[in-house]
């Protein structure tokens, strides 16, 4: 808790108030545009018809779920090694956001599965990996919430998420292996639709929008994390008295 680090948190907290509001608003607008683009403008897929359009939510959510875990683990590592407070906050706030993306990816995957496979759930490699990723996120969240001392909690969960990151490729590889071994008749290409540029452009756009959404939520959550941690400190009291 040395002076420069407090100043750092304070700096972040006071400077980002405006930014986060603008960012949230513009993300919402951009998201609506993307949804319109994906649902109405992009051409129909000649194999899957209109059901493929859920990909514009599913695929970015799945990417973001992995990316968030990576950010969580990398910031956890930085927090453990260099003891930077804001990194601790970023790392732990990644977990609920990442879990949210994972749930979105799972649910949209299931919705897509109904017309494609005839059932909501098939144990295919992607969905299974995504489910395991959800378990990893849940592990981090429950571990963090069971500690009373949040500063110890953050160190312990940092360790867990770093080990988790090492494990994700191994888990992914093993699930792929398992899937090819038990290959059913229902394997379809989901992430690689017969790609046409008019279909891929909205996908890329949605990926960027999802990243913006991540950033907007992240900033809000960091501010919340800073508030919880520093609510007894003098600068926070001064700020709320103003």
């Amino acid at each position, binding site marked *: 808790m040395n002076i420069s680090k407090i100043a750092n948190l304070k700096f972040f907290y006071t400077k980002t108030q405006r930014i986060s509001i603008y960012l949230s608003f513009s993300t919402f607008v951009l998201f609506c545009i993307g949804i319109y683009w994906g649902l109405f403008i992009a051409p129909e897929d000649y194999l899957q018809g209109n059901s493929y359009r859920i990909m514009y939510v599913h695929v970015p959510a799945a990417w973001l779920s992995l990316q968030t875990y990576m950010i969580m683990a990398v910031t956890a590592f930085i927090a453990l090694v260099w003891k930077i407070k804001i990194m601790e906050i970023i790392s732990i706030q990644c977990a609920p956001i990442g879990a949210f993306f994972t749930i979105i990816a799972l649910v949209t995957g299931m919705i897509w599965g109904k017309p494609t496979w005839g059932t909501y759930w098939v144990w295919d490699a992607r969905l299974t990996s995504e489910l*395991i990723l959800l*378990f*990893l996120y*849940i*592990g981090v969240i*429950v*571990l963090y919430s*069971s*500690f009373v*001392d949040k500063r*110890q909690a953050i*160190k*312990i969960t940092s*360790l*867990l998420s770093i*080990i*988790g990151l090492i*494990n994700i490729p*191994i*888990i992914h*590889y*093993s*699930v792929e*292996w*398992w899937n090819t*071994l038990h290959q059913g008749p229902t394997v379809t290409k989901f992430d690689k639709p017969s790609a046409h540029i008019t279909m891929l452009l909205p996908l890329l756009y949605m990926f960027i929008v999802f990243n913006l959404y991540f950033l907007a939520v992240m900033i809000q959550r960091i501010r919340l994390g800073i508030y919880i941690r520093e609510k007894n400190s003098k600068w926070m009291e001064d700020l709320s008295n103003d």
Partner: protein
Amino acid sequence: MINILIKKELSLYFRNLNNIFLPLIFFFLIISIFPLVLGPEKTLFNKIIPGVIWITAILTTLLTSNNFFKEDFNAGIIETYLTSDVSIEIVLFIRIIVCWIFTCLPIVIFIPIVSILFDITFQSSIVILLTLVIGTPILISIGIFGSALTLGLAKNNILTPVIIIPFYIPVLIFSASAIQSVSAGLPYDMQIYILASLLTLVLPTMPYLLKYTLEISINN
């Protein structure tokens, strides 16, 4: 030094023989529940026996490693570990190995009896044995890591399994697939090699990881 450490661990286990027999009895109990639930069809068991054996192995290792450090933590021995000037990694390594010898090795030894109960072919039971010998040390190490993570908590009954079971998945997949491959007459050496490389990755790094985790857990 090492002989005193080993002597201590051995005498602790031998003084309380329950420590050795209970995991084994637990293993057999769970294994025999499956036929009662699923019915005694032989063809079904040929298909599911790898899964049954490995799920039972998971449960056994989870239960035995769940409170691995708890007693020592309550007695203050972990504090002695961390204020000591000798290398604690060796102590932790010996403790992992001894824990494996007393909880998993009995199961491995009794696999022939399981083979008789479920009419497993000789070659399959050799592979089951092999995957257990390579796989269970990984499970035990990860389980002990989980117990170190939750050491600072007053109660952690079901938390540790929830956190670490996802980490068990690769070991499970490769072990079960090796057993299935051999019963289908396919080559299984690839899976064994992967398991072995996981073991060589986990076992040497685990003592260092454990020491670091204990340091964090104790600093509350």
